């Protein structure tokens, strides 16, 4: 048994809380553990923030499609946008053990996605850019 959910919103900062509420609502119907729901909200929030602030930079803001499938042991997430191609491997990597004065302000969002999600992948084509990740339910 699996269930699919999808929502499309404008790539604007005010959409972030809408995505988070959508995740809470959908996961609530499947008794997904609270800790997992929080991590999903965080990872989706960070990915969408990157799309809004960087993906559509210099362009008219387009849309973000958030789709996910809830299975008994995992949740698969797809986030699609139509902005600039983004290469996760090229993003700055924060040093989370650095002293205060050496801390940088950027790179933390992607770092948090990698810390909380499994099997992260990014594909780009004429049909848009899609970030996918899986969260195993423990």
């Amino acid at each position, binding site marked *: 048994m699996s269930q699919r959910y999808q929502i499309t919103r404008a790539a604007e*900062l*005010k959409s*972030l*809380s809408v995505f*988070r509420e959508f995740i809470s609502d959908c996961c609530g119907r499947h008794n997904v553990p609270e800790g997992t729901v*929080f991590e999903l*909200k*965080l990872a989706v*929030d*960070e990915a969408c*923030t990157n799309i*809004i*602030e960087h993906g559509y930079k210099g362009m008219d803001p387009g849309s973000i499609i958030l789709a996910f499938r809830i299975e008994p042991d995992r949740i698969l997430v797809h986030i699609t946008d139509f902005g600039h191609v983004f290469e996760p491997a090229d993003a700055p990597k*924060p040093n*989370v*053990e*650095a*002293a*205060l*004065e050496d*801390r940088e*302000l950027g790179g*933390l*969002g992607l*770092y*948090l996605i990698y*810390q*909380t999600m499994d099997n992260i992948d990014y594909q780009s084509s004429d049909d848009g850019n899609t970030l996918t990740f899986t969260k195993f339910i423990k």
Partner: protein
Amino acid sequence: MEIIDKQVDGVTILSLTGSIDAMTAPQITEFIQAQIAKGNTKLVADLKGVDYTSSAGLRVLLGAIKETRAQSGDLRLAGIQPDVQKVLNLSGFTNILKTFADPDAAVASYK
């Protein structure tokens, strides 16, 4: 995001209520900047009413801590809720900032 400020023993307590994301973070930065501009550099952020933060909140904290410490002040946290604590732990922020159970303890730590 709702922010209320209060002075106790020369320390400014900022009580935040709401969720911190890239939409709401600039409002907090602006509020903290205004406090620093008034010379209030000993700050306590009471996060009892904050149920969520993304890395946008971490950027606010990092900027504020750097700026206040450069002026012999600090930004110390109180009342951290479990999901916010998780983000602080994941990002290693617990090593660079001081956290307290409640605002009174955070204020007392400045003495």
